[in-house]
Structures are given as structure tokens and as C-alpha cells.
């Protein structure tokens, strides 16, 4: 496909993709390279990196930081993708209805979207997770619930744009149902920007999840990168590696996704200027 070839000529996009693949490999291979649970205390507390078979050192309880990062990759990616999916589903729904029907519906939904964009998303996330108790489900739903406005705005803009196109007019004349028009005609054409914003949402989701875990609001039974940084905070004087490496992992992953997403955006929508909002 043209798009794929165009993407392969995009240097930073390709760099992002390669980094992303590396992260995925780490995540997939985790149970083979580190068969024991990352919660197992295999060494002495505060083992410096390189000693005792722990390449990235040991944490406060003597757990392998490298194992934590590898297994944490699965957690972060899974939560990131699931939350982004949730955000996309909600956002597309709101944006599509708003953009397609226009008028009062549009106004109300846009006000709602604006409201969600005004409130500090992270605080809302904290509030929701605290009230509904931290667990994998609540975290995914919460992150989805605070990340959808951007998707909604974009979807709405696309729907407004596409709705007045000829083929839609034609379909309307032919008496096709709303659902068919939306799902069959408009949505497929709006997929590119939605895909882009969706992949960028994975990045923000990963950052949000790590911040929640850092504050102690993550699922306490999941070893995630944010949790590791939080646990390492009080021992930063004695064991800097417990906080440093998980953060680097987040940085690489988020950077990879951002580069990939931007590359996607450039190849799929060359006319849309790169506004970071």
C-alpha cells in the first residue's frame, strides 16, 4: 500500500516503530527470560546493578529490577492499549453523534466535551480510582473516561467535514439508514486521523497509569513501572537504580509511540498541521 511505503520513508516514524517493536519483544519474552514472578525476592536488598545476576540491580526487598521492567512492560502496554481503546470508543461515539446530527445535540455534547477538557484530568482520575477502588478494570475505565475529549473533538471535526460530501448526500437520497451511512461511509474515511489520535492516546494512557501507580493508586497486585518508581522514591539515596530504570523504560516506550504516531499522522494526513493539543 502507498501509505505503508510512505511511512517506511519517514525516518522518525520508523525509528519509533522499531523502538516500539523492541518494547513489544521485551514484553512478550518476559515470561521466558524472567520465568519467576517479578515479585520474587531473589537477591539481597539494594543489590547494585550488575551484581548477583541482577543486571539492573535489586530493589528494597531484593527483587530483580530487570524482571520488574520486563513484566511491567506487559502491564503498561496492556493498560495503555485497553484504556486508549476505551477512550476511542467513547470519543468516537460522542464525536460521531455530535458531528453527524449537529444542532442541539452537537451543542450539548460539545459543552460536555469542553467541561471534561477544562477539569484537570489527572485529579479526576485520582478521584474516580479512589472512589471505585483501584483495580485493573477501574484504572482502564478511568483513564478512558478522562482521555476521550480529544478523540471526540477530532471525530466530530471529521464527521462535520465528511457529512457534507457528495457520497453522503447520495446515500441520503437513496434512503440509506443513519447507521449504514455512519458506519459504512463516514467512519471508514475518518479512520486515519482517529487511528493517529488513538495511538497517541496510548502514550498518554501509559503516562497517566504510571502517575496513578506512583501515587499508590495502581492495582497493588500488578508490578507496573509507575509502582516501581514510587517504591524507589524513598530509597533514592541508597539505591538510585530502583527509580531510574523504570523511568527510562517509560520514556522509551512513550517516545516510541509518539514518534510512531507522528509518523502515521504525517503519512496519512499530510495536510493536517502537527498541532499538539
Amino acid at each position: 500500500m502507498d501509505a505503508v511505503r510512505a511511512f517506511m520513508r519517514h525516518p522518525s516514524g520508523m525509528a519509533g516503530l522499531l523502538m516500539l517493536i523492541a518494547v513489544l519483544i521485551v514484553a512478550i519474552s518476559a515470561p521466558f527470560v524472567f520465568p519467576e514472578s517479578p515479585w520474587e525476592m531473589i537477591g539481597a536488598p539494594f543489590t547494585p546493578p550488575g551484581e548477583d545476576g541482577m543486571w539492573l540491580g535489586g530493589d528494597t526487598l531484593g527483587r530483580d529490577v530487570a524482571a520488574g521492567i520486563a513484566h511491567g512492560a506487559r502491564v503498561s502496554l496492556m493498560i495503555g492499549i485497553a484504556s486508549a481503546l476505551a477512550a476511542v470508543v467513547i470519543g468516537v461515539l460522542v464525536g460521531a453523534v455530535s458531528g453527524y446530527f449537529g444542532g442541539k445535540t452537537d451543542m450539548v455534547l460539545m459543552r460536555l466535551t469542553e467541561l471534561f477538557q477544562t477539569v484537570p484530568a489527572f485529579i479526576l482520575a485520582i478521584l474516580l480510582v479512589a472512589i471505585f477502588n483501584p483495580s485493573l478494570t477501574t484504572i482502564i475505565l478511568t483513564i478512558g473516561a478522562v482521555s476521550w475529549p480529544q478523540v471526540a473533538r477530532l471525530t466530530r471535526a471529521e464527521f462535520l467535514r465528511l457529512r457534507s460530501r457528495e457520497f453522503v448526500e447520495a446515500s441520503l437520497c437513496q434512503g440509506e439508514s443513519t447507521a449504514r451511512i455512519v458506519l459504512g461511509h463516514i467512519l471508514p474515511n475518518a479512520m486515519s486521523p482517529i487511528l493517529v489520535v488513538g495511538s497517541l492516546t496510548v502514550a498518554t494512557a501509559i503516562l497517566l497509569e504510571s502517575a496513578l501507580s506512583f501515587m499508590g493508586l495502581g492495582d497493588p497486585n500488578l508490578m507496573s513501572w509507575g509502582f516501581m518508581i514510587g517504591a524507589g522514591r524513598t530509597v533514592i539515596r541508597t539505591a538510585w537504580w530502583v527509580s531510574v530504570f523504570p523511568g527510562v523504560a517509560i520514556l522509551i516506550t512513550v517516545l516510541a509511540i509518539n514518534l510512531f504516531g507522528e509518523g502515521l499522522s504525517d503519512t496519512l494526513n499530510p495536510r493536517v498541521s502537527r498541532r499538539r493539543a
Partner: protein
Amino acid sequence: MKGAAAFGLAAATLLVRLVAVILLIATFNFILVRAAPGDPAQVMAGQSGASDPKILADLRQEYGLDKPYIVQLGTHLARVMTFDLGYSYRQRQPVLTLIGERLPATLLLTLTAFVLALVVGTTLGAAAGLAAGSVVDTIFTVLSLLLYATPVFWLGLMLVLVFSVTLGWLPPFGYETINVQMTPFQKVLDIGRHMIMPVISLAAIYLAIYARLMRSSIIEVSHQDFIKTARAKGLAGPQIVVGHMLRNALVPVVTVAGMQAGALVGGAVVIETVFAWPGLGRLTFDAVLQRDYPVLLGIFLILSVVVIFLNLATDLVYRLIDPRMTTGAA
């Protein structure tokens, strides 16, 4: 519209917006309390008060929890408009008092970071944009990409690691040095020293965003026809051209800054936890630990208001850049 009339209209619009948002969020809080697991009285009492049946009974009566929802909502909204944000049974104080005590520290941090990110970000971005394609520009792009991908709390910790633990230049935690005699001027310097790392950690990510945006904005504007024409004709001096470019380039940056205000405020909460900064962030963390829901709901409301004021600030900057912009055109 000129002068007083414009100002009056702006003020009125702000007020309406403020009240509308407060009412909407208060309604949202109302719904949340009733959607939460457990009965509303338990949620409002927080885990601390919920163990006392007398407190629960009192709450039920006071908040009329047996009355129809619409009546409850009305009373709730009325309370919020009279600045009654509920009571914390854990801390034994009204929520508004608790928040009021901690708000100044948070505002200090947030506003400084906001201004820093905007001013330094746009300056660096403009410089990079004007020097587009050079080595400096490339370094700039790489750095801003890295910063944008960095978790804000981790950045804070890394700064502590480098500047406090390793180099010993800056104090790692807190707001001020205690038990040392200081003149007021020294005190200001002391707080300033404590502020350096938290502010930089918080501002860095947004600085990167605004810088990158400014850069691409400058590049876009500099290609615009009338600029080229003016230059070619030698009609406008360099300052006027650059000034004009900057003003136009700033517009999208300021828009984005306004939209990012919510994220900045959220970041402040995390940073305060990292640096034990005595603001709302710390209060949030404790309230989460204690499941002190009235406090959490109150913080959510107040910080939303802060965001609106930040949006107002960016609106004003708009006006400064381009007095031709009419109200509400954002």
C-alpha cells in the same frame, strides 16, 4: 468594542463561565457520590466518619438523603454556592478551610511553572524556528521530544538525584529550611531555592510542547506571503517583521497553553508528592490514603476553578498579542 465596555463584557463572561463550570462540576460530584459503592452518607463521612453510626445518622439528616434527588441536588448546589464544601471527619475541619490552607503553596508552584514554561518555551521555540535546519535546531527537537515523553514525577526524582543527592546543590524536599534564623529577604531566597526543582520538573514537559509548537508556528508564519513581500520590498524593518511574526506565531501556542492548563494543574499534584511540597497535592495524597472523599471532591472543584483562571490568563495574553480578537472567538 473598546475600553470599559469590552472589559465589562469580558468580566461578565468570565463570571458566567465560572459559575456554570462550578455548578456543573458540583453536579458531577453529586452524581459521583451517589454512584459510588456504599451509601452516600458513608461516602461523605469518608472512611473516618463512616465507622460512627451517629455521624452517619447526622449526615443523612443534614443532607436530606431520604428526600427526592432533585431536592438533594438543589440543596447541594446551594451549599456549594455559599462556599460550603463539606466536612472532613478525618481532619476534623471544613473542607474549604483545609483547601484554603494549602492552596497558596500550590498556586505558587503552578503559576510559576506556567509562566516559566510559556515564556522560556516560546523564546526557545522562536529561536529554534528562526534557526530552522541548523544543528542547534536538531538538538532542540530531540530534547523536546525526549522531554515530552518523560513522566513528570520521574523527572522530578532525577533532578533530586542529580542536584541534591549527588551534587548537594539544592535541598531535596520541602518548602523551606526550618530552625534557621532568616531575614524576610533570606526567607524569600530560601523558598526560591526550594522551588527550583519542583518548578522545573513541572514546567519542563509543557516547555517542550510550547517550544516545539512555537518553532513550527514561526516557520509557518515566516513562509507567509505578506512577510516575504514586505521583506522583499524592504518596507518593514527587521524588528517589525520579527515582532509581527512572533505575535502571529504565539497565537496557536497560547491556545494550546490554555488547553494544557488542566494537565499542568494535575502535574502539580504529583510533583508536590515527590517533593513533599505542602500544597494541595500532599492533601490529595493523604485524602486518597484516608479515603476522605469530601476533601477529594472539594479539591477537584477548586482545581477546576484554578484551570479556568489559567484559561482567563491565556485569554488576556491573546488580547495583548492581538487586540483585534473579539471575545469568545478562541
